[in-house]
């Protein structure tokens, strides 16, 4: 039963280079610790050639020319690790999270799907490289042999069945302790083996088992079994919680939106690739931007996102926006455009130091098209169009509306426009009722928003003349009036209302216009509410 192992050498370096791929050609060193005692934790090959080694202090490496130094980022390492797991799970359902930099996959039954083992290994390596990581991939007959081969051999290695001992014999002893480098006991064992003159796994494998057991105990026997490539264990499958997050910490705060768009584009590409690997889409994107605190203006309320859920790791210096989509989508370009339009309408207000993007996974939508369905806009295009329109007229002035359960005038609210995919339910359905005849046509009212203040002349309690009450000379004779009809409500609330309504016909220059005239009984003023049309 074959197993594959993906190993990322210099994982902390790779995690940082994943978000800054332009620096891959230069020497790169990762620092750990608190200033001024920071030390080099990991380096890439170019830095090693320049003489930089792990353990050197920051002061020692700073004079090196063409060397890029970055602090270690556990968050980026976690993100890269999650991406690696997603990639592995796109090949095999049984994946073991062996270490931060090591993933083991069970390839049983995959040859019929993906082809021969060397092709599977090559595809794995290529897929990992699209994530921005350089990996070493090995395939062997058991998980531990695959791990040792991936750690010891560069590139892609396939060990045929039965040849594990022979292939692994060339590897140095250090590969047995690669994930236990800080363990003092492991250091002692390695030192003992070196004192015995052993340097390769093959030398350890040839020693008598009983002698190893006497001198090094069960641990020594285990190490010898590993060196022989004969260790047999079962994989411990790992179920990764579905968290699709990408983050990037900036060396210099961002002020303009254009470079922010470039970074968002890269992050969205990664997110969409990870979602696609799991055959998922997303219906909600959450963007959190850490702002530079000393640029925050006192007394100015930063715009906040519509997401009100508690977010303990985001203190008030974070600027959050949430994009909720009407249907699950998986188009990075559409997401980028929507984010750009949203940020233009609601700018952060301060330089940005860190970007955190999260996608809420959702099942992709399945659409059944048909010839006889009514026309409807494409969700992606519609979402972009609505975002552009919101940028023109305002976010709260575009959408569909819902009537509230009240008799109060203007008792409605705006809500996001979401087209229900009810075409499949009613597609092909004939009109259930005939078009309205003239008997059923409703007389419409064109509302004045806000209502117009008016001055009304009364005669025996009925309005006879209406004019404007503010400056402009307008007036008209009321040639017909019907009313009043009283309505009131919400007297139990802080803002009650009470009004008398009149339907009036006003003589204008060339025509007669019907208005709705209202008397606000609480405030004692006359208002023109609208025209019947």
């Amino acid at each position: 039963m074959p197993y594959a192992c993906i190993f990322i050498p210099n994982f902390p370096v790779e995690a940082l280079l994943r978000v800054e791929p332009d620096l891959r050609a230069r020497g790169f060193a990762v620092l750990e610790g608190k200033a001024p005692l920071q030390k080099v934790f990991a380096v890439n090959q170019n830095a090693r050639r320049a003489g930089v080694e792990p353990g050197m202090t920051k002061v020692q490496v700073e004079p090196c020319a063409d060397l890029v130094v970055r602090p270690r980022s556990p968050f980026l390492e976690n993100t890269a690790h999650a991406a690696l797991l997603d990639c592995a799970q796109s090949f095999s359902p049984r994946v073991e999270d062996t270490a931060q930099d090591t993933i083991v996959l069970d390839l049983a039954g995959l040859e019929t799907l993906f082809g021969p083992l060397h092709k599977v290994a090559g595809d794995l390596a290529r897929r990992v490289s699209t994530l921005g990581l350089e990996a070493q991939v090995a395939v062997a007959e058991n998980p531990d042999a695959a791990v040792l081969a991936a750690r010891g051999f560069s590139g892609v290695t396939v060990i045929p069945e039965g040849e594990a001992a022979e292939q692994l014999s060339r590897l140095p002893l250090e590969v047995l302790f690669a994930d236990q480098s800080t363990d003092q006991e492991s250091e002692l064992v390695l030192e003992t083996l070196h004192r015995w003159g052993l340097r390769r796994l093959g030398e350890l494998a040839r020693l008598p088992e009983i002698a190893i057991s006497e001198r090094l105990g069960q641990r020594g026997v285990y190490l010898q079994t590993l060196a022989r490539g004969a260790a047999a264990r079962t994989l411990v499958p790992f179920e990764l919680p579905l968290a699709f997050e990408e983050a990037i910490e900036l060396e210099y705060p961002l002020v303009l939106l254009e470079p922010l768009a470039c970074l968002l584009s890269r992050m969205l590409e990664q997110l969409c690739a990870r979602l696609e690997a799991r055959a998922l889409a997303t219906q909600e994107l959450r963007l959190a931007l850490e702002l530079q605190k000393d640029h925050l203006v006192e007394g100015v309320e930063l715009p906040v996102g519509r997401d009100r859920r508690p977010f303990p790791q985001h203190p008030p210096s974070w600027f959050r926006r949430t994009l909720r989509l009407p249907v699950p989508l998986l188009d990075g370009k559409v997401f980028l455009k929507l984010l750009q339009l949203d940020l233009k309408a609601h700018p952060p207000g301060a330089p940005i130091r860190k970007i955190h993007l999260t996608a809420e996974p959702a099942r992709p939508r399945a659409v059944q098209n048909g010839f006889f369905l009514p026309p409807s806009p494409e969700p992606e295009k519609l979402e972009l169009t609505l975002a552009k329109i919101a940028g023109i007229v305002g976010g709260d002035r575009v959408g569909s509306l819902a009537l509230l359960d009240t008799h109060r005038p203007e008792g409605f609210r705006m809500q996001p426009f979401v087209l229900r995919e009810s075409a499949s339910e009613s597609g092909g359905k004939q009109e259930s009722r005939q078009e309205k005849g003239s008997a059923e046509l409703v007389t419409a009212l064109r509302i004045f928003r806000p209502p117009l203040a008016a001055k009304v002349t009364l005669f025996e309690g009925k309005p006879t003349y209406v004019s404007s009450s503010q400056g402009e000379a307008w007036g008209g004779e009321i040639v017909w009036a019907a009313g009043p009809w009283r309505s009131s409500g919400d007297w139990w609330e802080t803002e009650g209302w009470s009004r008398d309504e009149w339907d009036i016909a006003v003589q204008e220059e060339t025509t007669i216009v019907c208005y709705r005239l209202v008397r606000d009984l609480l405030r004692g003023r006359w208002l023109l509410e609208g025209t019947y049309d």
Partner: protein
Amino acid sequence: MSSFSFFPQVSVRHPLAAVLPKKGSVRVGEPLAAIPKLTEVKPASRLALRPAPEMVSSGVREIDTLTGGLPRGCLTEVCGSQSSGRTSLLFATLAAATKRQEACALVDVNDVFDPRLAAAAEVGFEQLLWVRCGSPVENSYSSARTFRVGFGAGKYSEAGKNFARQRGETTLGQALRVTDLLLQSGGFGLVTLDLGDVPLNMARRIPLTSWFRFQRTIEHTPTVLLVITLEPCAQTCASLLLKMQAQFLGARPGAGDEKPPVCSPPHSAQDRKAPARWKGSGLRSAEEVPKKLPASGGFSHTELLEGLHIQTEVLRSRLERKPARSLTTFTSQSVCAG
């Protein structure tokens, strides 16, 4: 020497000999079309036949009978003054489109849409996208009032007119951009641009290229573009132009045989000079009642606005089907009446 001719001797007939009648064969006055050859000639206007656009119901039976409905892929313009029934027709059209499960959009230039009466007209809000142009500040009292009432000259201060013009241009610009975005997006069954309260001088300044652009965008699509205006603005870009006028119907419940008062708008230049007259028993004309209500209407709370008696005329139709008649009337009902 015998002479020879350079040109062969052929019998040369006059080019029109085939079509010209022979002497004595056709009586004077007989139409040329009767001549067999000419019946095969097609007029130039029929040479390239365009497919007739699909027609959809406007929601009003009388208008559907008059015009066949509203054409898809074309611009339909409905013009009329205030209280002429344009918005009632708009509600009926929206209701019909939403019943067909089509996505509809309403670009409301002056934010005048009344949700409650639209619900009474059975407009489906789930399918309706409402775009409210201008900000609440822009739609303030003075600007809105100047838009809506009294388009005659000389009633307003220059300051008021200028203020309205500036605000109106910003809002109108927004409306045109939004309409363009919606049409470019595609997929909407009905897009309505409500310019019903935009002053004439501003509406006429909408460049013809904008109307062309709208018309070209929706050509060959299933979208109906309906524009509500005071006076025709889209000119040749409108495939169907309807003009509406209305008379309001006021009634007194329990009045029996007494006819409800109907106030007619003036139809001729002569009428425009005199104020509109009342009809109906016991009612005085507007000239006689400058300050008082009609004598038979002593109690205003017994009166009801029944609705509008709407007259619709087809001013222009570029559709294949020409209406047999160009005028129709129908009545709308007020929600609270009856």
